[in-house]
């Protein structure tokens, strides 16, 4: 896999990483941009990579509706479970995104590093969130 081909994956993974840190540390300007961009692009791109969706134009056209649909379904499921935690939803979306990249049909060694980097804050956030839920 060339560096150019790896670039989109790196962008999404770094975005996921930045979004996780931004939401954890509540750094507002960074949070608005990174979390916003991640939520409208990350899950959709990852799922389309996972499905090896052909045609760049089509991916570009579908990335926002697919991302928003995944966001909407995850947040609704959590809400119906009686939990309202944007942080938990964020963690789940990071996990879905990185999981989809991990299973995408591309070079293993390249994505493994990305996944580890991007999953760490997600796992930290998830652990923190679960402890809060358990406490309440």
């Amino acid at each position: 896999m060339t560096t150019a081909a790896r670039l989109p994956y790196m962008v999404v993974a770094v975005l996921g990483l930045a979004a996780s840190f931004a939401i954890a540390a509540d750094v507002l300007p960074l949070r608005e941009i990174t979390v916003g961009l991640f939520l409208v692009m990350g899950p959709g791109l990852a799922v389309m990579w996972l499905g090896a969706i052909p045609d760049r134009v089509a991916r570009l056209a579908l990335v926002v509706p697919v991302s928003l649909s995944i966001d909407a379904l995850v947040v609704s499921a959590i809400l119906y479970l009686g939990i309202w935690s944007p942080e938990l939803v964020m963690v789940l979306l990071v996990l879905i995104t990185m999981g989809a990249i991990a299973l995408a049909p591309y070079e293993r060694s390249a994505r493994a590093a990305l996944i580890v980097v991007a999953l760490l804050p997600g796992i930290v956030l998830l652990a923190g969130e679960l402890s809060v839920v358990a406490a309440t």
Partner: protein
Amino acid sequence: MEVPPPSPLPIVSRSIALGASWLGSALERRLADRRMWIGLGLSTLAVISLVGWVAVLTSLDPRSMNDLGLISVIPVQAFLSIVLLSVSFVLALRMQPQITPVLMIHVAALAVMLYGAPAFFEDLPRFATAWLHLGFSEAIARTGELYPLRDARFDWPAFFAMAAFLGSATGFELLPVLQWFPPVVMILYLGPLYLIMRTASSDGRLVWLAVWIFYLLNWVGQDYFSPQAFNVLLLLAVLAVLLSWFRRAPGASVWSGRFGPWMRRRIPSKLAAITVDAAGGRKPAGISGSLSNRQQVGLVSIVAVLFGASVASHQLTPFALLGGVLGLTVFNRIRLTGLSVFMIVLLSSWLMFMASTFLAGHLAGLLEEIGRPDQIAASNIGDRLVGSPGHLLVLRARLGLTLGLWLVAGIGALRRLRSGQLDLTVAVLAVAPFGLVLLQAYGGEMLLRVYLFSVPFMAFFAAAAFLPTPRAGSWRLYGFLAVVSVVLAGVLLLTRYGNEKADFVTIEEYEVLQRVAQMAGPRDSIGSANHSVPLGYMEWEEHRIVSLDSAFRDGAMDLLLVELADRTPDGQDSYFVVTRGQRAFGELFWGMPDAEWDRRVREVAEVTDLLYSNRDGAVYRLRDPQPAAPP
């Protein structure tokens, strides 16, 4: 062995070939450069027209609007921007081949100009229902609860929950987002719409003209901050996937599908001669041959996710989508024949298990309306053609534009048929939404929704009325297209923003809302003369919002006060709010003169205490709170 000397002939011929090749590539580069410069020039014109439009609109005063709405305050010089954009667009359209980014810039500029127009000069987001939807989202964000017993829309909460989540997770203030939501969502439609259009024809001019016409004709105003705006995006995305990757090969027979033999037995043989779809469509670039298993599973999963989000977020759009998919399946246009079964199962499961609160209260009424087109037509057309003379003109313009589009689309379909193109796929999707009319009146809004769901496909046929075949076309035709674009933009501004006088919200009105939200305690009632006031925005879950439209309209002021008191829990206070937007609504939709409005407000004031007022509204409180319930 002696090696013969090399013949000069191959060297000469190779040199000539090399020279010709160099000349060819130089010419090609030159041509490419020229096209690039033309494209850059046209894009600059599009940006200039947008800047000119914004410069004129920012100085407008919304208070000077009359009953015709936004169009009444837009000066003639603003239309120069639309003229410039239209001319530039048709020039870009005439280029062969078209430069996609240049055309995209033009369409995006048009979307911002037409759908973002109020945001350039109104202080606050427009349209009370958009504020109410934001109120729902903020209620979820504050409490983490759903309220299906208070409002049926909470049985389809995914859009509100998503907005609540996006606001909480990003830290964005959502109120300003409302103002720019329409142009942004309209631009988001562009991607899936383009994918759909390019499967319908390989003629780039027809594809882009259809997209352009879609943006000139979407007058129904359903692109505000709402589940339906989000759902139109999902509907287009699902159809884009199905038509791009699961369409039957061009030329596939209608009668070879699962329902083919059954249908063939039931229709006249002459009609059965029409068996194939247009062969003009193409697969998206980059796709060759069949899809791998991974790709098929991936695409089907994407359709499932998109449809799932639609089912969880809107009560009507999934039915429109199901109708379209059923039509495509019956006419053998797509390969996923089991998809409609999946959709039916998902839809009915949601209705039975997740929307049971709504069904329990409304099932009888819903069933009663099925197959009553007379009642549905009355509530969708007859009952809506009322109001002030200016408003009646707007309503007639809407009716005229709708019927005009359908007529031109019909002509387009016939012209395509005469040129040997039966666009069966597009025709099925254009006609399928009309089935919804037989099912429900949808509060008198079903025809609007039918228009909304069919307009992308009607726009294709309307474009085909001008460009039925891939021939270049004369300059006169392109000049005519530019004129039509300018006229349609004007008509769109009239029809789409015809209620703007009642829809815009001033800072003073916002202050009235803030005051009443501060004064009213939890469980207090807040009544209003009609629903054209963004009362639901502030702490929606805390208060009981009561719209007293019919009592106020009919002048039954005693009844109004009794109704407000009845809706107030024991021991709680009742407030009453009147605003400028409500007065404008009364004038537009009820034809109520100012003097009559003032008389009714005075009647309310006589039995209430005035707590706050400014030039755009007032807050009153009923003098006698409801007696407290016995312990």
